[in-house]
């Protein structure tokens, strides 16, 4: 039995008396109106506050083990260093609450709203946070190991140095979240969204990131050893210093990644190099033609999957690209009076001017970046070219269909006329 009954507690509150440090174990106050009340250092183990209105209440250092707060309003409540081990906070509104250094081990926070809550150094081991809202929550140094965070919304949350080892982040949303130095060993993060998040120095050893979205994320010096990244998206991710998975990645969706070191300008790597880097496999050997070099009247052939970067002047040259070979004309690169053919991927940061039309024949992908220029005709393959043009590019180009398509079209038109 509690030291005070619910009626006595309510009377004390109304008369302005303090109920701090009281033994209130098992107190039942469901749906009570207790806004701003202080239960500081009270023993409220097993108390029932289901649906109670406790906005701005002070529960600092209170013992609330196995307490029942389902559906309670705890907005901006002060629960700093409270002991909530095994408490039920399902569907509770804890937005803006202070739970710094609170013990929430094994607590049920499913579908709770913790947006903007302070949970720094909180103990959340084995807590249930499935479907919880943690938008912009402060979870730096929190212990979230073995926690269920499936489908939780953690966009813009601060998880710096948090321990998420063995946690479940399946389909969770962590867009623009801070995960610098976080530990995510053995984490299940299938389909999780880390878009534009900061994950630098994080550890994802043996984590399952199948179909995860890492688009635009900062992955510098992340440890992916033993992790699964099959079907993951990583276009635009910063990957310098990444420790790869150690096994091939199936279906990685990364058109390019940025391998620039801290403070260096963007260093784009194409899809093949991105997959090689993230898988930790030996990267395709790159053929590089540096500044100042001049090649004239040359015929060059590059194998399937080759990676070629040109920063030189190529004059009257013919380049044949094998399937999926990548050709990057760097900012200083100039291909004058040249011809490129084959089912490769071409990126133009510099200049390309054709000799005979079509100057570019059969590319699977053609990107002209801002500052890049292309003068000539491009003949698409039958399966068509994936084009991308960045604002600021300069084009004088004709796009043509594959020769056999054009021939077939002419035959059809001729047939109609007859």
């Amino acid at each position, binding site marked *: 039995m509690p030291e005070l009954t619910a009626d006595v507690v309510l009377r004390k509150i109304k008369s302005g008396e303090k109920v701090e440090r009281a033994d209130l174990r098992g107190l039942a106050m469901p749906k009570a109106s207790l806004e701003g009340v202080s239960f500081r250092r009270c023993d409220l183990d097993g108390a029932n506050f289901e649906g109670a209105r406790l906005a701005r209440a002070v529960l600092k250092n209170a013992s609330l083990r196995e307490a029942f707060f389902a559906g309670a309003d705890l907005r901006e409540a002060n629960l700093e260093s409270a002991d909530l081990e095994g408490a039920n906070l399902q569907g509770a509104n804890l937005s803006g609450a202070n739970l710094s250094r609170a013990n929430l081990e094994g607590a049920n926070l499913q579908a709770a709203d913790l947006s903007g809550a302070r949970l720094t150094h909180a103990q959340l081991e084995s807590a249930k946070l499935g479907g919880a809202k943690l938008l912009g929550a402060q979870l730096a140094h929190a212990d979230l190991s073995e926690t269920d965070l499936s489908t939780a919304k953690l966009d813009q949350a601060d998880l710096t140095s948090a321990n998420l080892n063995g946690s479940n982040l399946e389909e969770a949303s962590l867009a623009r979240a801070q995960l610098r130095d976080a530990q995510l060993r053995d984490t299940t993060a299938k389909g999780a969204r880390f878009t534009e998040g900061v994950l630098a120095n994080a550890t994802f050893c043996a984590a399952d990131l199948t179909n995860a979205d890492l688009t635009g994320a900062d992955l510098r010096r992340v440890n992916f050893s033993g992790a699964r990244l099959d079907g993951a998206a990583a276009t635009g991710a910063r990957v310098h210093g990444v420790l790869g998975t150690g096994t091939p990645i199936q279906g990685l969706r990364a058109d390019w990644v940025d391998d620039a070191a801290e403070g260096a300008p963007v260093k784009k790597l194409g899809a093949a190099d991105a997959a090689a880097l993230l898988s930790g496999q030996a990267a395709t050997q790159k053929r590089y033609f540096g500044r100042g070099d001049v090649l004239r009247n040359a015929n060059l052939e590059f194998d399937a999957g080759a990676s070629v970067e040109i920063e030189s002047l190529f004059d009257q040259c013919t380049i044949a690209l094998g399937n999926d070979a990548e050709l990057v004309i760097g900012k200083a690169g100039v291909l004058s009076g040249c011809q490129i053919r084959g089912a490769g991927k071409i990126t133009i940061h510099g200049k390309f001017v054709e000799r005979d039309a079509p100057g570019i024949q059969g590319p699977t992908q053609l990107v002209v970046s801002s500052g890049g220029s292309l003068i000539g005709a491009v003949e698409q393959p039958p399966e068509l070219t994936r084009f991308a043009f960045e604002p600021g*590019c300069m084009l004088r180009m004709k796009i043509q269909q594959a020769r056999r398509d054009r021939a077939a079209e002419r035959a059809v038109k001729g047939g109609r006329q007859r």
Partner: protein
Amino acid sequence: MMDKDVAQRKKTLVEEGTQFKGAISSDCPIEVKGRIEGDLAAPALSVSPSGAVHGRVKVGEIRSDGELAGEFDADVVQLSGTVKDNTVIRAKSLEVKLAAANGKLQVVFGECELEVGSEHVEKKESPALPKATSVRPPAPDGAAVTSTKLENAPPNGAG
């Protein structure tokens, strides 16, 4: 002359299922969810995935997710959707985003010409389109299309 703020707030809408043949000139941005065949002049043109514009177009800005055919002059062009055969796009700036590998193409280009870059537009400024003239839009399959003169015509389907 229409007040600038009003022009910015209002827009001319050609709704899905509506087909407009003739010349259209507006001080407001034009949004096309249906189909326009003819000359078009406006500060901005937006073509939704269900929309199609076939003809001669002179606008400040084009954002297209639909179908374009004909001659397009603009300062800024953002493209996805389809560009049909015999189309010319002239712009100071063109943006086409890269589609995901193995995904749907961002833009399906037919046989067309792209003239992009500020140098070109300064050198080869096209004359302003007349407010309303008879139009002969390019036929998608080479068949003749009857042009329609719509000077001071009621906004049948437009507006």
